[in-house]
């Protein structure tokens, strides 16, 4: 799962029928493990009523399809949680790479670090 911020919403009338009742949010990841393309956004289905500006936890890949207990939904990203609070180690947050493959473009706000 990754941490990101909701920056918008997208609407589509013509879409796969299994997405008909889905709210689709545009999320800008704070960090992203080996993104496949040079984009700074992803589209995730939202069942937890996240809104613009919220920090959210997004599940990617196959488990995202299980977010509503239904496997046959053609999605690869789902909002799993809306973040209330995060405690981060300030020193670790400054490290250029938290782990191999992770691209960071983001400095956490001071209220998140200790």
């Amino acid at each position: 799962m990754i941490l990101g911020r909701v920056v918008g919403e997208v609407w589509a009338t013509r879409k796969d029928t299994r997405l008909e009742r889905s709210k689709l949010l545009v999320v800008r990841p704070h960090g992203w493990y080996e993104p496949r393309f040079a984009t700074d956004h992803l589209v995730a289905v939202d069942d937890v009523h996240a809104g613009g500006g919220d920090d959210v936890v997004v599940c990617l890949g196959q488990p995202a399809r299980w977010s509503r207990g239904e496997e046959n939904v053609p999605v690869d990203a789902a909002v799993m949680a809306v973040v209330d609070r995060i405690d981060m180690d300030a020193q670790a947050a400054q490290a250029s790479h938290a782990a191999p493959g992770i691209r960071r473009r983001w400095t956490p706000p001071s209220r998140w670090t200790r």
Partner: protein
Amino acid sequence: MLIGEVIGRLWASRQAEGLAGRKLLLIRPLAGAGGTTAPTSGLVVAVDGLGAGPGERVIVAHGSRVRDITVGAGVADKDVVVGIVDDLHLEPGSGAR
């Protein structure tokens, strides 16, 4: 999923059996949290079952299971168009660039 702009349709007279008869679109993923800045490099070739055309923005999902339940398990592409964008709203001041 990602949002991309359809920049063309792709034809190939010689192709693997798994692609036979499938409509393939050339899609440029949008940067700038959904298209507010210039597109970046890197193109996706995705299977389209919805009837998207050049100039339209589409939602592309990735994965073998996505492929299996949309266009069928026998198709040799893991990127599938699952939606055609009508409208895109970006929050002002939300960090969108």
